């Protein structure tokens, strides 16, 4: 058994974790069988607690996800009309069980592809590689008069979803730093008929310089390793070294810390990643809680599915117990891409 210690007492988390990464035979065998870096497998055991469950996760990462689409009610009055049009083309759709305006594509045709139908070009739907991306906007649940910031916005799946939930009312500031990604974002905004949004090509961390305390809802869908998307991009089994993972961690802490500055008191920020790595998730939240006394972790309401709880212990590091209020989506449990969500409230 490892000794446990409060995370705030550990100065060098990277070394702490690295020293505790298991190098057992099971780790080696599974890493080689499934083609992963060994440190990833060692972490999965730490996260899940049994080799059987680790294998379930790894097997789930081998299964392809079905595409999902969101019917865009800014353009489509009656979603049955969209379904009919796509079914005429040969697609088979099934309503997503947690939201009736989204559909899983259970059968596809070769041509046209879902990203090139006339319906797509007209902005009647947004195309997702997995359905977990539908969940953050539903949890943030923006209202028509809200002031919303989406600080890492491209290509705009969540921005356009937020605008749809707000019925094109209120205001969204969507920032994105990448040039080509900004083009894609703008194209999606126009294609989907979104008209309540200001797009800005800027580092999202700079928003605090000109709209400090302005927003009542902020989404930070943070840039991350994408360790939840292995079924979509198997490259990610080997792409990120442990050193790089910890660099992501640092920049996520920095981004979230700046993002909180844009919130007004009583406002909420939803921090999400498409990663299952605690380093990019619970450990980021724990660092923020240690740094600041003006935010608290909120219970996730409006959750359309039952989420797994956030970790409060990782490699012997004790995290604040409220971090358990954060939510996790696992491929082997939820049959979606891996995802993390955590809602923070600005309390002063």
């Amino acid at each position: 058994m490892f000794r446990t210690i409060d995370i705030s007492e550990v100065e060098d988390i990277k070394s702490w974790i690295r020293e505790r990464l298991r190098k057992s035979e099971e780790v080696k065998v599974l890493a080689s069988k499934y083609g992963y870096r060994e440190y990833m497998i060692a972490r999965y055991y730490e996260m899940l607690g049994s080799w059987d469950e680790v294998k379930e996760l790894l097997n789930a990462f081998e299964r392809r996800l079905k595409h999902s689409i969101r019917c865009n009610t800014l353009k489509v009055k009656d979603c049955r009309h969209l379904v009919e049009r796509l079914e005429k083309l040969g697609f088979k759709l099934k309503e997503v069980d947690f939201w009736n305006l989204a559909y899983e594509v259970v059968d596809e045709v070769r041509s046209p592809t879902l990203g090139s139908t006339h319906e797509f070009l007209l902005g009647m739907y947004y195309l997702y590689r997995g359905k977990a991306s539908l969940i953050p906007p539903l949890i943030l649940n923006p209202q028509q008069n809200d002031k919303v910031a989406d600080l890492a916005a491209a290509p705009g799946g969540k921005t356009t979803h937020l605008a749809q939930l707000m019925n094109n009312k209120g205001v969204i500031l969507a920032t994105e730093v990448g040039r080509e990604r900004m083009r894609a974002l703008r194209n999606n905004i126009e294609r989907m008929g979104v008209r309540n949004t200001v797009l800005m090509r800027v580092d999202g961390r700079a928003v605090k310089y000109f709209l400090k305390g302005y927003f009542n809802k902020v989404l930070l869908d943070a840039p991350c390793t994408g360790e939840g998307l292995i079924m979509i991009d198997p490259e990610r089994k080997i792409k990120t070294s442990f050193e790089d993972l910890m660099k992501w961690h640092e920049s996520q802490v920095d981004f979230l810390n700046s993002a909180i500055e844009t919130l007004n008191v009583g406002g909420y920020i939803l921090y999400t990643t498409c990663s299952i790595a605690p380093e990019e998730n619970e450990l980021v939240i724990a660092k923020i809680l240690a740094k600041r006394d003006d935010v608290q972790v909120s219970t996730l309401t409006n959750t359309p599915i039952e989420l797994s709880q956030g970790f409060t212990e990782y490699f012997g590091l004790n995290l604040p117990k409220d971090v358990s209020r954060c939510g996790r989506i696992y491929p082997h449990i939820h049959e979606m891409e891996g995802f993390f969500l955590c809602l923070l409230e600005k309390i002063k």
Partner: protein
Amino acid sequence: MSIREDKVAKEIKCYFTTYDELLKKTFNALEILVASEVLPKHTVMICEGEFVEAYLINEELKHVIEAILANNRFPYSAGIYVGRLRKSKPYIIPSVDFLTLIYELKREYFKAVKIRDEGLKPFLYGKDVLKASVTECFPPLNNGDVIGVIGNDGYVYGVALSKVSDCNEVLKLNPNDVVATNVFDVGWFLRGETRVKEKKFKV
């Protein structure tokens, strides 16, 4: 970690102006007249950079943009994208979204041709509209005017330049004669023609 700043940022200038000013710049484009009537409370924002682009901004968005401009930054786009302004004819190339808005709110002022499915596919590959594919014509059309292109399903699929001076002229054309040349269509981004088309209709 230092915050990345956009170098291009400094070369763009955005400012608020009035419908009257926009009407002057577009030589009284019908679409702008309609917008000033249906969305009178919106402010016009013009951004000048590589292109000159116009937007319609409501009060809430204006507040956010003012904060951005006050910090010597600029928005990339905002609100309702009206289209691109030019110094020569056509003085404005309206966006598909803006044309859709006009089509929804004031159909009687909508200059357009409706085309059958067989013509729609080539149009979405950037091809011109031929007489053979036109099923309906919504006047007034003038040679050189920007018009909407509607599919048989009633959706706006793009923007074209009229080659005819009125709808009756269409009837007199041969099936393969061009009724309108493709300026912009909803397939444009997918085809990856961003740069090419942008250059072609540069101010």
